[in-house]
């Protein structure tokens, strides 16, 4: 077959990924997006015009050689595609599913200027799934350096850092407070977006190949401290995330049925509450659910709520309930990924924009019966550049609700910093760290991911873990006396903004 011209490539439409039907999937926890077939993948790969200066790579926090791996897919050489992918990203099956490609690599794709960009994320997922099933890429690990690194937190940042450090020949131990590694990938992101078996396989495979020790049930700040880790390790990376939930400061937040998205999602995902009573942890919502916020976590909470309602309706034979997303700004400011919003809409989630709760109303038994809200309008732009929502006087009204889930963002868990007073933090509770390499104010301690940036994306955390690993390696391999290193350390730290 003759090679296609760029013009011909650009005429191929962007390939859709098969998905479960919305009416069917809103009643189960199985994966929504089913992945490309070989044919679809090849066709999509054919669309890439192999730019000489691939700007898509600039949008990738871990700099995956995007055109190269797509070329290998086009040629039907998936082993090669996987090898190229894994030079930069060890968790492609995960990233292919949860990365916001539309704001990172795909937004830069030149095809997007006139039409639709190459579906880089879907191709990444295709390659990641192939590699996960076939395990073709040999792991080449550098010889043992004799240095030891401790990684705190087995989420995206910590695991990426751990894998890179182990590849470079360092002895790595990961400390995780929950019962299984994965962080937000296991407690936060639902099964229908990211199957847990896959997370587990991809993480454990990487860990096993590289001799990484993962210690679960180890709670930093209580069972051990950073200072203790520093006595037994040469370097410490903190990828402890942003696990502390926020509640609105309005009356009624302690009524039964009010919860944080963290609690709700942890019950559903990590503890498999949707399989109660086969699993012991119950997860339940009422017939009318309000999720406050419109980020990815809010979409996840809303869609999990709806699935729980559907399972309950199946059991009782009644009509399933309603799930509302209540957001104080307008559709234009919604921070969630476009695909997540689209999926939520398809599944029948109701969006109440420019609406803000002012009070949660309880019944005589301490349960939620409603939510007093006020209508908002957009005023002048605020510090974030978005137009500030302003309450409209006299527009209060009551929504009947049985469950209210707060998905308002999270901040780092203060527990992490017990006995680590020399670790400088910002007023938001995040760790002060060099934005490029992750060095903190504490000698031999690096940090990256949500603990530094506040709640952000999986791939940004992975990028930070990767950058920190490179710097930790440089530091450990330098061979300069410790005293000298300590003297030069402070200079590497950025001041809080």
């Amino acid at each position, binding site marked *: 077959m003759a090679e296609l011209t760029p013009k011909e490539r650009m005429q191929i439409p962007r390939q859709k990924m098969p998905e479960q039907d919305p009416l069917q999937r809103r009643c189960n926890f199985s994966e929504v997006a089913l992945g490309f077939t070989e044919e679809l993948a090849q066709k999509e790969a054919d669309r890439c015009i192999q730019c000489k200066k691939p700007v898509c790579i600039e949008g990738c926090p871990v700099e995956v050689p995007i055109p190269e791996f797509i070329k290998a897919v086009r040629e039907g050489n998936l082993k090669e595609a996987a090898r190229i992918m894994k030079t930069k990203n060890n968790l492609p099956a995960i990233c292919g599913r949860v990365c916001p490609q539309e704001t990172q690599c795909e937004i830069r794709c030149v095809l997007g200027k006139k039409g639709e960009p190459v579906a880089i994320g879907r191709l990444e997922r295709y390659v990641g799934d192939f590699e996960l099933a076939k395990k073709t890429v040999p792991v080449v690990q550098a010889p043992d350096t004799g240095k030891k690194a401790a990684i705190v937190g087995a989420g995206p940042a910590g695991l990426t850092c751990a894998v890179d450090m182990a590849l470079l020949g360092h002895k790595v131990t990961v400390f995780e*407070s*929950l*019962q299984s590694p994965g962080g937000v990938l296991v*407690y936060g992101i639902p099964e229908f977006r990211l199957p847990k078996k896959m997370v587990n396989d991809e993480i454990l495979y990487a860990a096993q190949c590289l001799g990484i020790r993962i210690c*679960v*049930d*180890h*709670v930093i700040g*209580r*069972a*051990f401290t950073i200072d203790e880790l520093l006595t037994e390790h040469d370097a410490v990376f903190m990828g402890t995330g942003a*696990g*502390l*939930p926020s*509640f609105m400061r309005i009356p009624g*937040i*302690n*009524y*039964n*049925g009010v*919860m*944080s998205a*963290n*609690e709700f999602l*942890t*019950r559903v995902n990590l*503890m*498999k509450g949707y399989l*109660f*009573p*086969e*699993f*012991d*942890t*119950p997860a*339940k919502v009422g017939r009318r659910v309000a999720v406050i916020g419109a980020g990815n976590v809010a979409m996840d909470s809303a869609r999990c709520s709806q699935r729980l309602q559907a399972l309950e309706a199946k059991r009782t034979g009644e009509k399933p309930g309603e799930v509302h997303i209540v957001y104080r700004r307008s559709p234009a400011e919604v921070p969630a990924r476009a695909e997540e919003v689209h999926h939520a809409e398809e599944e029948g989630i109701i969006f109440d924009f420019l609406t803000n709760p002012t009070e949660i109303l309880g019944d005589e*038994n*301490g*349960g939620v019966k409603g939510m007093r809200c006020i209508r908002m309008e957009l005023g002048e732009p605020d510090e974030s550049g978005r137009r500030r929502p302003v309450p409209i006087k006299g527009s209060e009204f009551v929504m009947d609700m049985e469950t209210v889930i707060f998905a308002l963002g999270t901040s780092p*868990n*203060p*527990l992490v910093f017990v006995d680590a007073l020399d670790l400088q933090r910002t007023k938001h509770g995040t760790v002060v760290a060099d934005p490029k390499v992750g060095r903190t104010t504490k000698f031999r301690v690096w940090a990256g991911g949500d603990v530094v940036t506040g709640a952000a994306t999986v791939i940004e955390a992975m990028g930070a873990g990767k950058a920190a690993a490179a710097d930790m390696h440089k530091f450990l391999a330098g061979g300069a006396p410790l005293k000298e290193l300590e003297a030069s350390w402070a200079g590497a730290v950025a001041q809080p903004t």
Partner: protein
Amino acid sequence: MYKILRKEVLSDIIKLMVVEAPQVARKARAGQFVIVRIGENGERIPLTVADFDRRAGAVTIIFQEVGKSTMHMGSLKEGDGFSTFAGPLGHPTEIGKYGAVICVGGGVGIAPVYPIARALREAGNEVISIIGARSKNLLFWEEKMRSVSSELIVCTDDGTCGRKALVTEPLKELLEMRGKDFSRIWAIGPAVMMKFTAQTTQPYKIPTIVSLNTIMVDGTGMCGGCRVLLDDGAKFVCVDGPEFDAHKVDWKSLLSRLGFYRAEERQAVERWKHKCALDSAAASGSVRNG
């Protein structure tokens, strides 16, 4: 797996287990708790540390079989183990030299009160302890409590052991007699007992500390399900507690939140009992059809 080194049956429904968990034992202090989980399908439940042995790397827990998980735990044997045994969590009790103190333990709450009373005694305090339960068969550690107290008052609701009284009765008498002497009171037990203890001590304005056992998932500050309303706003029991000033707690809200999953708890218990019945029928070879 965290192995059960020793199991002791304190009563039909109260069991003691010594569990191998060196990383918990290393740091554990009176007043802290652990999160335990049985098997891959298990829920994470908080249990207060009843004792610990740093050298042996072991932690003692005591629990009452009230729900499916604790019933399941009660059926485990020495040599079995837990899938999760994470901790120590929460703040330890602030032990100081306060002078004269009272330690009140109700039911299974006697277990967490013991290490606190012991530490207070070791710090040079005069410790008067009151322990109580519904009935004699639910009382335990009387001798241990006596050994760390200058005076021990035992009471049961039905009078089968010690005084026939609720723990608040001897407490009130003590306070009437020499209320000014006491600088602090600890009370641990069922939420209702702690609530009434708080009411009893309130008029005397003696700082009263309770250890709350709210519903938790992770136990590390992540879910906020354990939040409790105090005078000055909501706090997380897992990271801000588990001990709080009893006079500041909104008991009505606390009691209501404890009951949120009652229907599911009941369902799980029935399912467990059914499974146990089938298992024992199968074991005795007398499985009937239907």
